[in-house]
């Protein structure tokens, strides 16, 4: 019901929609994120910002999918938004103006994938540390790469 309404009322704000195991998925371009989310929040009660993450497709152009999940507390429904952004300019607008929880979650996506959230002025590392080079969840970051913040102790050659 509510899904039908969303696809009808907001049809000029997204490009494609489909169903994923009972959840509505909307695909859209970065510049439409803010108007769409604002309307979802205000008209359809999607007041809980659950999650943001990204998926990396190195072979594809544009390379990244930024994936949002929202929850509507009065409809008990979830919705997923997918935004494609290119490697050269991985920028989406921030949602910190609409949801406080976006602050932390965007920081994580920023450090893990290098997605920039335009307007979020606090994109310090959160799970990683200051000075970490690269974005570990990108597919081209090797899983066994090490960059310790404190040098490993050298093997002592003589004595115990």
């Amino acid at each position, binding site marked *: 019901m509510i899904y039908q309404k969303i696809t009808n009322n907001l049809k000029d704000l997204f490009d494609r929609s489909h169903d994923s195991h009972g959840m509505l998925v909307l695909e859209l371009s970065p510049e439409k994120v803010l108007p769409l989310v604002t309307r979802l929040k205000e008209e359809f009660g999607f007041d809980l910002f659950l999650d943001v993450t990204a998926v990396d497709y190195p072979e594809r152009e544009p390379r990244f999918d930024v994936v949002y999940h929202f929850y509507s507390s009065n409809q008990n429904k979830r919705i997923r938004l997918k935004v494609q952004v290119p490697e050269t300019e991985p920028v989406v607008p921030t949602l910190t103006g609409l*949801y406080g929880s976006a602050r932390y979650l965007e920081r994580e996506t920023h450090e893990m994938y290098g997605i920039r959230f335009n307007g979020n002025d606090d994109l310090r590392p959160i799970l990683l540390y200051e000075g970490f080079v690269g974005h570990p969840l990108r597919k081209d970051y090797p899983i066994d790469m090490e960059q310790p913040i404190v040098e490993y102790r050298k093997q002592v050659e003589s004595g115990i």
Partner: protein
Amino acid sequence: MEYKSPVRSYLEETADPNNVLVNLGPSHPATHGTIQIIAELDGETVKKADIHCGYLHRGFEKEAEHHTYHKIIPYTDRLNYCSSLNNNFAYAEAVEKLLGIEITPRCKWLRTLLSEYNRVADHVTCIAATVMEMGAMTAFLYLMTIRDYIFEHLNHLTGARLTYSYVRIGGLSRDLPEGWLERLEEILQFHERYINRIHGLLDRNRIFIDRTRNVGVMTPEHALNWGYTGPILRSTGIPIDLRKDSPYLAYPELDFEVPVGIKGDNYDRYYVRMREMDESLSMIRQCVKNLPKGPVSVVDSRVVLPEKSRVYTQTEAVINHFKLIIDGIKVPAGEVYSAHEAPNGELGFYLVSDGSGHPYKMHVRSPSFAHMGGMHTLLEGYQVADIIATFGSMNMIGGECDR
């Protein structure tokens, strides 16, 4: 050796020269969890707080991309290690949704029973740690006694006290051992007796109320805005519970209530957890009563390992076993988001498969991480000592928060 700080606090200088900056953690005896809080204090009052997590980051999501679906199960144990079974089941359900597998009725009811049982253990741990940090040693020991009985009992079932790895895609690793349900009832009665003592010790305790009532207060709008879920959201009065709202497993067939708080302060969070345990106990008893007979795993050789007796005697079973271990389960391409009501809140698994034996992308929506994002709002304006009480009632679990 040159020392480099792993964090850059936005509080480098105090706004007022009379204020001081205090660093709590990341390893602090009064916080249960490795987390760093940098606070600006005016006397005893917290003016600003900057919270840094990540000290327990293990790269779970990166590891998951390099493991087969079965080999991820032990990693999910280590998310919220106080209630590993809830993580196990949430993960398994996400994969099963992608595979399109319907689990057997017995498995469904057993998973429900064990989810609730582990929820009790988690809540008990949370309350125990919180009150211990506030100085209530007796309550701590009573609660830890219950927790240890539960852990020993789950050890009997799964072979481990904390990291159970009990789930399998499409079922469970084994059925209940003999006498397990009888012992379960004994422990539940023991739990009720001890929880009554906890009510007696804490509910109207002057010291406890002073430390918790009207401390760390939040409104429902505030909680939703900052992404709070689970008991913390319910303590503000919003009855959102995935077990009721988007039912999974056997929850639609169970009769239970969703306890909510009034004010959203520390005391409400304590009380909501206490009430939830009562509901969990009632649900466990309903599960025991309704537990159907039958197999615990589906019959599907694409997913479930063949029986050991067959592996040792039949060629096909050996090949089947080999393929499942080496190549892993072939999960059809697609994506799914599946969420369970974990003891801390909404635990979601976002899984993208490309049709191969390991996930293309795995993301965990962990409740603790979202909760930490809004923590500073609950600390600012209160006293330094309240940090400990408020932080305890959040039940931040490092493994789940930092992944």
